[in-house]
């Protein structure tokens, strides 16, 4: 009701203006019109001249980004206006997507200016956690009380016997901005559907357990262990660790055993009978598939007697 009233008043007003009676009224109206005309022209002139005279050379990319932004200077991004945001994004692409009013369109535009698409050289890299041991498969010397961080726990004496395996306090989880990595039963586990390959997790792990591997296949085979302990020590520490026995290397030369630890040469890896066989023959089952549709890793073949022994001797 109010709206219709308003509309009718406005219509009436417009009509009134159009048919304004001559005299004082028209003079005033014209004065206002002239005034605005003057103002508008004045500013247009000044700004045009100023924009010529006071031009400052800047990185053309900044200009491009600036042009792509909404230019509201609203400060929603946490910067002092679109200009400074443009500059900041150029320096630090992690700041992408801070422009709330711009939304995804602007995000895409800036991304294309910055050439952020991953360059197509070789298969995309994805993280592989070089450990497959769940909490109940590991040996602990003592209980760790304290700061729930892998870096912190790693700095202390080895409460968890294996110095090389996953600690499970999730420094990598916290580093992942894409919720693609979780600690499951004490073991960091990548959700390959969500992972973008940003490498943040591999930088965060204090034990260097996470390697960025070129995923030539959907699922990659890997030796999920990082321990260079001798076989006996390794067995006493973990039921599913690599003992460096060399069985896999005998099947195919895609595996290399060095320092009591087998490694898969990812650049040369391709699915083969031999590799599959190596996987079957591995006594501790440390050779597994990793990837979005990887099958569950098998359990170790023999009950590792050594583990039980080590425990008794402890």
């Amino acid at each position, binding site marked *: 009701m109010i709206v219709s009233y308003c509309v009718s008043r406005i219509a009436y007003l417009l009509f009134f203006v159009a048919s304004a009676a001559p005299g004082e009224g028209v003079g*005033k109206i014209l004065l*206002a019109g002239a*005034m605005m005309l003057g103002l508008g022209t004045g500013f247009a002139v000044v700004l045009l001249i100023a924009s010529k005279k006071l031009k400052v050379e800047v990185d053309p990319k900044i200009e491009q980004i600036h042009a792509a932004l909404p230019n509201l200077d609203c400060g929603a991004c946490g910067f002092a206006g679109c200009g400074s945001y443009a500059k900041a994004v150029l320096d630090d692409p992690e700041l992408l997507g801070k422009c709330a009013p711009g939304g995804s369109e602007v995000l895409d535009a800036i991304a294309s200016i910055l050439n952020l698409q991953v360059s197509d050289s070789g298969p995309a890299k994805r993280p592989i956690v070089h450990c497959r041991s769940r909490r109940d498969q590991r040996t602990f010397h003592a209980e760790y009380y304290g700061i729930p961080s892998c870096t912190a726990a790693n700095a202390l004496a080895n409460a968890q016997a294996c110095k090389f395996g996953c600690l499970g306090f999730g420094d990598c989880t916290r580093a992942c901005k894409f919720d693609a990595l979780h600690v499951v039963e004490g073991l960091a586990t990548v959700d390959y559907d969500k992972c973008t390959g940003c490498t943040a997790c591999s930088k965060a792990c204090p034990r260097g357990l996470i390697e960025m591997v070129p995923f030539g296949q959907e699922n990659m085979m890997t030796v999920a262990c990082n321990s260079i302990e001798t076989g006996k020590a390794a067995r006493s520490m973990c039921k599913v660790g690599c003992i460096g026995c060399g069985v896999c290397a005998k099947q195919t030369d895609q595996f290399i055993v060095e320092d009591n630890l087998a490694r898969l040469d990812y650049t040369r890896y391709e699915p083969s009978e031999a590799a599959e066989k190596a996987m079957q023959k591995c006594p501790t089952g440390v050779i597994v598939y990793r990837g979005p549709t990887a099958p569950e890793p098998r359990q170790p073949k023999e009950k590792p007697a050594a583990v039980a022994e080590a425990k008794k001797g402890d």
Partner: protein
Amino acid sequence: MDKVRHFVEQSWLLIVSAFFFGLLLAGTDYALAPTIRQNRIDKLNRLAKGLLAEAEHFIEVEEKIEIESGKGKSKEEITIYKAVGEGEQCVGWSFSVGGPGFQGTIYLVVGVDAGFEKLAGYRVLSSTETPGFGDKIKYDYFREQFEGAPVGELKLVSTGKPEKIDSEIVAISGATISSEAVVAIMNDSVLQVKERMRKKGLIDNGR
């Protein structure tokens, strides 16, 4: 010449629409200005009418009264309205004065009787007092204490019966400053107005 052409190319739209908007604005203003002016007068009238019930209409007194406000720091010009009752007889006076309140300036519309002897009360024209505290100067129970009270002799007390009409004004609990401010305006400013009007002979004329 090139420059001019370039300029026109760039900004003709701005200039044209500036002109158009200017016309639109001025037209609107032209159409609405009388209503807006009338609104202000209406409001004053409405408030003053509430104070001086017998008044039929108000006449703006030509001469402006100058009073000192803010402890003599500045001078203010006040327009006085004569309330005219039945038979063009003066039934009182009304004017708007301001004074410092708890937070900002309190503007009151004050009514007095024809002889400037008794207050007819006040209405708050505008104020920025705290809602729930000083805001209560707008409430009837506080305002009614002033109706019929003698000009220039008001005293603020903290306890007593508000219903009693006398020179004692019972402060709003928890907002003495606002109460004080109103009393101060009603005492100082009204007395000053009375003084000046008597000097100018306005009051006697009104009789």
